[in-house]
């Protein structure tokens, strides 16, 4: 590729990246505008006097620290549980030798994957009630016991499918049972998948909005997602406050993503999970 084409490519890539990041950047700048000022009539690229205290204010307006703690608790339990159950299931399916049965399980997965969230709202609610978990954070953690989404099981399954059978067979000859096989062989081999699933699961639970709306009734149990909505309802036009709350909520996700995206976006190793024709 000739030189100027390379530079053009870089230039365009930079422009595209800027376009994608711009909304976030604007929101960040808006969050630093002092609250007493009227709304801006021009685009501020950096506030004249950044009001960092806005980020402290969001904790005063609602008990945001508590809500954040709740979100963290949910994620702290849901993420390992999901990864564990998905990994076990994906591994189990990949090792089942009964072909028709395995295919049935895969179809089960795909069917479950295609069921939209709205179809399960109300009656998951009833199940939560029966289990006495209503208005507790455990109600939010519950989907983790179903690996949160069949997608994760499928991701692990595909990953394990592409490990050469010889590796597993060799270990089996050494007398390893399924559980040992999983722990000693499958888990280390699936590190990129584990990373991907962990990040995606965290994001799912951290961002979850609908579930707390349905299951949580008392303010002590609210999560951060509800907190942002509450701030919005309380004062729709206090833009700095709203933006600060949104950025605060997005920050851990962005940070986590930033640290870990190299595992699946830099060397395109996600391709390892898919077949090479």
């Amino acid at each position: 590729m000739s030189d100027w084409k390379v530079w053009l490519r870089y230039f365009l890539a930079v422009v595209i990246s800027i376009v994608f990041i711009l909304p976030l950047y604007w929101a960040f700048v808006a969050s630093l505008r002092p609250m007493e000022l009227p709304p801006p009539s021009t685009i501020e690229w950096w506030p004249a006097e950044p009001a960092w205290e806005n980020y402290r204010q969001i904790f005063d307006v609602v008990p945001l620290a508590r809500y954040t703690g709740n979100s963290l608790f949910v994620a702290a339990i849901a993420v390992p549980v999901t990864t564990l159950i998905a990994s076990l299931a994906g591994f189990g399916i990949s090792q089942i030798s009964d072909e028709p049965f395995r295919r049935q399980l895969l179809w089960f997965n795909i069917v479950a994957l295609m069921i939209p969230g709205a179809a399960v709202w109300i009656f998951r609610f009833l199940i939560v009630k029966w289990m006495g978990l209503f208005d507790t954070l455990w109600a939010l953690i519950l989907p983790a016991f179903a690996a949160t989404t069949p997608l994760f099981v499928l991701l692990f399954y595909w990953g394990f499918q592409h490990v050469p059978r010889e590796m597993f067979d060799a270990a089996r000859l050494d007398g390893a049972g399924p559980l040992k096989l999983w722990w000693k062989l499958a888990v280390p081999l699936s590190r990129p998948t584990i990373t991907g699933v962990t990040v995606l699961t965290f994001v799912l639970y951290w961002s979850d909005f609908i579930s707390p709306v349905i299951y949580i009734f008392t303010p002590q149990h609210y999560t951060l997602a509800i907190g942002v909505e509450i701030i919005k309802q309380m004062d729709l036009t206090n833009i700095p406050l709203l933006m600060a709350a949104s950025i605060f909520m997005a920050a851990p996700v962005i940070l986590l993503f930033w640290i870990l995206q190299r595992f699946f976006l830099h060397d395109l190793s996600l391709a390892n999970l898919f077949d090479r024709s």
Partner: protein
Amino acid sequence: MKQPRASRLFLLLALVSLSLLLLLSGCGGESPPDKTVSFAVFGDPAEFAAYQQLVSAFEDAHPDIKIELSHIPGQGEYRQRLATEFAGGDPPNVVLLNYRRFATFAAEGGLTPLGPYLESSEVIQPDDFYPITLQSFEYDEQLWCIPQNLSSLVVYYNRNLFDAAGLSYPADDWTWDDFLTAARALTQDLDGDGQTDQYGAGISPKLFRLAPFVWQNGGDIVDNPAAPSRLTLDTPESRAAFEWFVNLQVEEHVVPDAVAESGESSESRFLNGTLGMYFNSRRGVPTYRTISTFQWDVAPLPRKLQPAGILHSDAYCLSAATEDKESAWTFIEYANSVAGQTIVAQSGRTVPSLIAVAESPAFLSPDLPPANSRVYLDTAPFIRGVPIMPGWVGVEKTVSEEIKKAFYGDASIDEAIRQATDLAQPYFDENTP
């Protein structure tokens, strides 16, 4: 296709573990202490604080009963949560419901009527309340809930802006024309850029706001309030009121247009001091009390042929699924006694339904704005409620959308009225047997 035995066993195991899980989890929940009453409210944080005070005062007076207070900000979500709660079969024992919405719950057996409890109460009596409030919670010839407040639609105005424009404050019997004059004077382009920066007034284009204007002009929104069967915005009196209402934006431009409203809401402009008069019920008071940049007060609705106000009222209702009804009633009774209502009145949020409390300094206190709180009480004789019927929510929602279209110039008045009448009809039809 014959399934291998192993997979059937698999399925069996799955079902067994499922049932085990369900059984085990049944032992999981902790049983609440004796005599707990769950109580759900909605509203701003300032309102919530008032209920928190009420609850602790009650627990002091009745140490053997504990109240679990839950709060949902905003009214919309509240209805939705209540729906899921009732669906689950375990709704809060005591719920705060608006008179426009309780009928559905009553009709479907979700509530226990409180009429008999009130009759035999030693703490409060029906005569202690403003009659219109009790009437609004009657359905099917029974009293279902105990009302806590009665408010009408009033006008909050910015005294500083009136002063700056050289206007005298609204008189208690001011008319539609007086209002329009003031609104025109207050709508100004302050920096000469061709855009209005300060608006004279702000009002939500909804049926609930339009109704009192229709009544004042001698019309009505339905054919028979006791047994409504159709919307009547097309009668000459109703239509004239509708036209005047809509022209506030379309012709007079004294209220923000769609873009301006979307950029910054009327209420927000009022709070920021760039809107002269804002129509709202008593609900706004706790928030407006936080205003520090200007002085404000309250005036009654401007009148036309006859004075009329529209009832805003919430009540304590008892859900039918409650086991310990006695304790729940004790709380409801306390909340609506002079002691209880005084506490909530002090937050500024309510116009108490108990005549004694409404006339007391707790409500009329001149120390906190609005100074002219008598306004709420003076309208009491003229207040009317909207029809009480299941499905009224649907009527309001669909008709309000059409009002909004006409208000922002997206539909002509007659078109909007026609659409509104057609869309609302199914809700009326559902209710006529």
